[in-house]
């Protein structure tokens, strides 16, 4: 029986390179104006998955993402780096999902793949930084989780040993399959796309999966299945940049510290 590895990945707006047109006048995010990237920690997760594949015979790596059809770009990217297969969960019924609804959809999709041995994912995505989807998928699949993984120490078909980051140190943990692992930015960089692999799949259609394909309870998907609601959005950084010169008076410093606290900077 083959050894199945799944990588959870996300195509994200490149929040490190936001331009002046990144925000709409109403304070919402203008996604169309933002370049997209393969979420950096998901690339690290892909590399760890490929290393497991390298050391286990007949192992396959399947990349799963949720997003608009253009998210197929990261599946192609992942395949050119060594992943075997991948698909996009794409359906308007998934739209507006918070982490709970997202993890439900992903876990239902993973269940359709049969018995999976290891699931890797980035610790968090740069557009939300929540680090919730990994542990939530693990809970929904009722499998153990190892978060904050930095290094793959050892792996065989039965168990995996990982070094994970703590606040003030690291720990080495060993888990038996199946298990879900979330990978931090400290892990190894992903190998480069291979030109031959890139060309070979250039014309391949990436599979699109919709809500009807994953045996889902429709009430648990998208906005409807999301307990968290956005009440208000305030634009901070992209607001008009002021340049203020202050004299070090008690009053001026007091006002500055109050402003920074109010703006959530301090």
């Amino acid at each position, binding site marked *: 029986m083959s050894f199945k590895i799944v990588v959870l990945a996300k195509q994200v707006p490149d929040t490190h390179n936001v331009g002046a047109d990144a925000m709409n006048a109403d304070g919402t995010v203008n996604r169309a104006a933002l370049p997209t990237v393969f979420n950096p920690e998901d690339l690290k997760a892909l590399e760890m998955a490929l290393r497991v594949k390298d050391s286990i015979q007949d192992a396959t790596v399947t990349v799963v993402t949720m997003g608009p059809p253009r998210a197929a770009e990261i599946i192609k990217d992942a395949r050119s780096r060594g992943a075997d297969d991948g698909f996009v969960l794409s359906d308007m019924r998934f739209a507006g999902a918070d982490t709970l609804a997202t993890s439900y959809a992903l876990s239902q999709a993973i269940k359709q793949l049969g018995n999976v041995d290891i699931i890797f994912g980035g610790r968090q995505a740069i557009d939300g930084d929540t*680090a919730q989807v990994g542990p939530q998928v693990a809970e929904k699949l009722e499998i153990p989780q190892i978060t904050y993984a930095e290094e793959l120490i050892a792996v065989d078909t039965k168990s995996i040993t990982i070094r994970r980051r703590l606040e003030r140190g690291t720990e*080495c943990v060993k888990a038996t399959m199946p298990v879900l692992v979330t990978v931090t930015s400290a892990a190894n960089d992903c190998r480069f796309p291979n030109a031959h692999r890139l060309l070979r799949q250039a014309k391949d259609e990436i599979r699109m999966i919709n809500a009807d394909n994953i045996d889902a309870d429709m009430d648990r998907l998208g906005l409807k299945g999301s307990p968290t609601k956005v009440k208000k959005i305030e*634009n901070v950084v992209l607001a008009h940049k002021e340049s203020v010169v202050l004299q*070090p008076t*008690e009053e001026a410093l007091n006002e500055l510290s109050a402003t920074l606290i109010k703006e959530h900077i301090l």
Partner: protein
Amino acid sequence: MNNVLVYCELSEKNTIADISLELCTKGRQLATKLGCRLQAAVLGSNVKAAAESLYPYGVDDVFLADDKRLSPYRTLPHFDVLSKLIQDQQPDIVLFGASSVGRDLAPRIASFLRCGLTADCTSLEIGSHQDVKNNKTYDNILLQMRPAFGGNIIATIVCPETRPQMATVREGVMKKEIFDANYKGTIIPVAVSPSLDKADKAVEILSREIEEQKIDIKGAQIIVAGGYGMGSKENFQLLHQFAHLIGGSVGATRAAVDAGFAEGERQIGQTGVTVRPKLYIACGISGAVQHRAGMEQSAKIISINTDPEAPINAIADYTIVGDVMTVIPQFMACYKNNLK
């Protein structure tokens, strides 16, 4: 029922971690506002003394699960005990630290309970929310504010329909404060179920290495950086105190590093590291182009300098014209006063 619960983390010395004391301080305010009890959950081994140390923070009830399988922290044993406790107690609000423990445990709990969870909140308040679509008003709910989108926006999140409302908060964001040194709460022992054995075997800790904190300014959200204008290694200590107060890290220019004021790992600029914190406070830094290259993408820049014409001021949002050794202590005092 309908209380505020804080999940408490333990330090390596088996005391309550600072982040959890900060959450208890915030939790006390929320509980007082709501007129409910502040409760804490302490899961560990030999932690009765730690549990009792929570009373001065205004904790009314401490749920104490004392079992050697709960120490050190592992996901599944803590998940097993805490998820049952929450189902049993049905708190209105549950708070976790946004630490490697809290960010590991809270999402799994939220998934199990199918409730909302807001990560890395910078502010928590009680307020009301109007749902225009349903034409429904929700009073006394938790307003959870957090930066999103790489810090470019601040979002206020609510969970109107599901309970508990759960949030994580980073260390140093909330203030830690004794509520009443003589406050008396009670300990409520929590039975640890035999089913823990299954959870206990899932993930095994082979070894742990607790290290002295490494200098790593790259990921810091707030950086207090000093230049040659700081004058001495002794004066640099003030920057450490300042950074500690506001939850930041200390950086330095090449000139300051070359002069021996700071370690090489702290060097920011072309030959050091490039940083993009949300706040960069340049202290006694003139702003050579090589230094600016490593920090000009910071979201907000404050320059403190005696020279009003220092090049760094051109890219600063705020320039404070004055001597760092007097301005910083003044600013620290103002900051303490303004902290909620």
